[in-house]
């Protein structure tokens, strides 16, 4: 029978089926971090259950770590305790930890792919909903709750019912200045925040085929924002080239053998999906959000829609926007380029390409937070850091930072922040903070002009977009 990419990976990981119930799904890699793991370790200890496969777990500290002076003790005592507990738990259970100060430390969804931990055809989980990121490699990757973290600790398996499948195809040529972030914001704006609930998505079509791995990760990262547990892209030469030679990637003959297997994974030509959507690349433009969920997005040149609905009005009231208003020209005082959605080297190259030779607007606080120590090192080596610094941007150390404001990096109440992160929920970036989601290019342009501007008019000379 014809199978989808999702079917092939899922079916090859089913250990057993519970009669009239879920399946036992085997998990290849389990990523953990300081916020959603302590209660899982405690659960195991209370029940006296050992870790089943400690070598398949990798830990890092990312969610609440400071992005300044990481060599000094963490000032926030609760964060400090959580990070210390992760260190202690990893030591006690002999789990690999890339903690603060380690050259591999970083946002879990940036760190694992760049180390070659993420590979096609795997199943991966993490107590973080943006685990969907790793689907960019043709991997079944999804976020889990802490009870499930404990289950994977105890058995390297989860009890799950197989989700339905949906395919989202985007074909054609993207306009100049339209980035992967715009593509996914466009898709979510079209489909809504719960269109994917109960489904695993596959992104197909030449737009994704022509995208870099960094771009594919940005797209898959936000699958959860339309409710899908995960999103996948078929592995191809771009994928193999990215994985090749990375620290934990298979080497030599083993790598060749893997490639032969990975090439069997793409969806069969006549496979059937439960749901299909299709969009034209030409219709996509740089996007911004105007509301308090990622589905509330518009093309940057459009007006905020009018809708008589209590939740919609509550959302606009929080954002301080009016129905029918334009976002172009709005004064913005905060810009954040970072998060597991957009903090990889390509994101900073694009932002730097635009910023080069320009100065940030006086009213703007512009924060650059690399996704990992390796990205931080790379932006220094490539001279990108100099460009940001010369333009007046502040460069920090790696972590989740102002995406969710668990550390000190918060946006003040009432202020707008054009952010490359993934969620514009009320209070997400700090109590009362108002988030406008956008691509790294739109964020860079906002920082330079101090207001929301249409980048499409001034990007002809840019090389990278």
């Amino acid at each position, binding site marked *: 029978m014809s199978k989808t990419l999702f079917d092939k990976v899922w079916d090859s990981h089913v250990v057993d089926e519970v009669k009239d119930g879920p399946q036992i799904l085997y998990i290849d890699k389990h990523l953990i971090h300081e916020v*959603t793991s302590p209660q899982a370790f405690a659960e195991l200890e209370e029940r006296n259950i050992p870790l089943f496969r400690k070598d398949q777990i990798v830990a890092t500290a990312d969610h609440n770590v400071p992005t300044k002076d990481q060599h000094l003790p963490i000032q926030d005592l609760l964060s400090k305790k959580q990070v210390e507990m992760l260190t202690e738990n990893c030591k006690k259970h002999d789990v690999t930890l890339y903690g603060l100060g380690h050259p591999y430390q970083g946002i879990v969804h940036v760190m694992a792919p760049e180390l070659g931990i993420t590979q096609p055809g795997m199943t991966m989980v993490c107590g973080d909903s943006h685990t969907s990121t790793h689907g960019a490699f043709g991997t079944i990757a999804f976020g889990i709750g802490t009870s499930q973290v404990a289950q994977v600790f105890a058995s390297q398996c989860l*009890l799950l019912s197989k989700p339905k499948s949906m395919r989202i195809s985007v074909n054609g040529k993207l306009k100049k200045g339209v980035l992967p972030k715009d593509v996914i914001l466009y898709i979510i704006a079209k489909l809504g925040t719960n269109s994917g609930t109960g489904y695993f998505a596959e992104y197909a079509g030449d737009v994704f085929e022509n995208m870099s791995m960094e771009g594919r990760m940005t797209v898959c990262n936000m699958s959860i924002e339309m409710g899908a547990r995960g999103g996948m892209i078929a592995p191809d030469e771009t994928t193999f080239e990215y994985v090749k030679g990375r620290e934990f990637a298979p080497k030599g003959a083993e790598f060749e053998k893997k490639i032969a297997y990975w090439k069997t994974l793409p969806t069969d030509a006549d496979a059937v999906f439960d749901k299909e959507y299709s969009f034209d690349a030409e219709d996509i433009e740089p996007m911004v959000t105007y509301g308090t969920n990622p589905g509330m997005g518009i093309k940057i040149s459009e007006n905020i829609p009018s809708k008589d609905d*209590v939740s919609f009005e509550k959302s606009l009231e929080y954002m301080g926007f009016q129905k029918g208003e334009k976002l172009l020209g709005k004064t913005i005082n905060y810009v954040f380029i970072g998060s597991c959605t957009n903090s990889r080297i390509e994101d900073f190259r694009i932002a730097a390409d635009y910023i080069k030779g320009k100065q940030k607007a006086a009213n703007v606080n512009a924060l650059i937070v690399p996704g990992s120590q390796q990205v931080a090192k790379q932006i220094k080596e490539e001279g990108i850091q100099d460009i940001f610094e010369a333009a007046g941007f502040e460069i920090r150390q790696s972590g989740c930072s102002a995406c969710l404001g668990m550390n000190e990096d918060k946006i003040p109440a009432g202020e707008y922040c054009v952010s490359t992160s993934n969620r514009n929920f009320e209070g997400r970036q700090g109590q009362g903070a108002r988030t406008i989601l956008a691509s790294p290019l739109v964020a860079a342009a906002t920082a330079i002009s101090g207001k929301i501007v249409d980048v499409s008019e001034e990007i002809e000379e840019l090389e990278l977009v």
Partner: protein
Amino acid sequence: MEKFVTLTSRAIPLSIENIDTDQIIPARFLKATSKAGFGENLFRDWRFNKDGSENKDFALNQDIYEGKILVAGDNFGCGSSREHAAWALTDYGFKVIVSSYFADIFKGNALNNGLLPIQVSPETLKKLLKTIKKDPETELVINLEKQYLTIEGTDVKESFEIDAYKKMCMMNGYDDIDFLVSNKDKIEAFEASRTF
């Protein structure tokens, strides 16, 4: 996990759609290392004003409403995978959440903590919210074994879906860990049989 078979309780109406887990429990309260005490900060930024005083307009703060059931707008629990959202709701005293739609991860987390998510039709949800607002003393009856929700003496009665395995777990207070650990032999055999 506590067993759940039936529940008769008043309910608190929260007619907001797309309630995400950042609203249920904001990220700044996720720094605890145990599961206890999250109820204190449930819906923190909706329950309290900026000056720390209670927001009297918010349903959870209105004396007319009480109960172990939360009736909420469409797409409840979207966003972050934080199980802290389920812990905050149970710690506050909720046993059941009724909505016309639940986000996947939240639904799983709720079931793993003995918190029953009941999905009803949008029409029934509307009816429930209206009935509770009109008469806050209205009691909802939930029967997990027979899988229905009703308000006695009215025409509100709806059956709901639940995975048979999860239903068994809820009714007996079992969780997945015991089951998975008991399958260790099968899991090891699977590992040994893999070619990739």
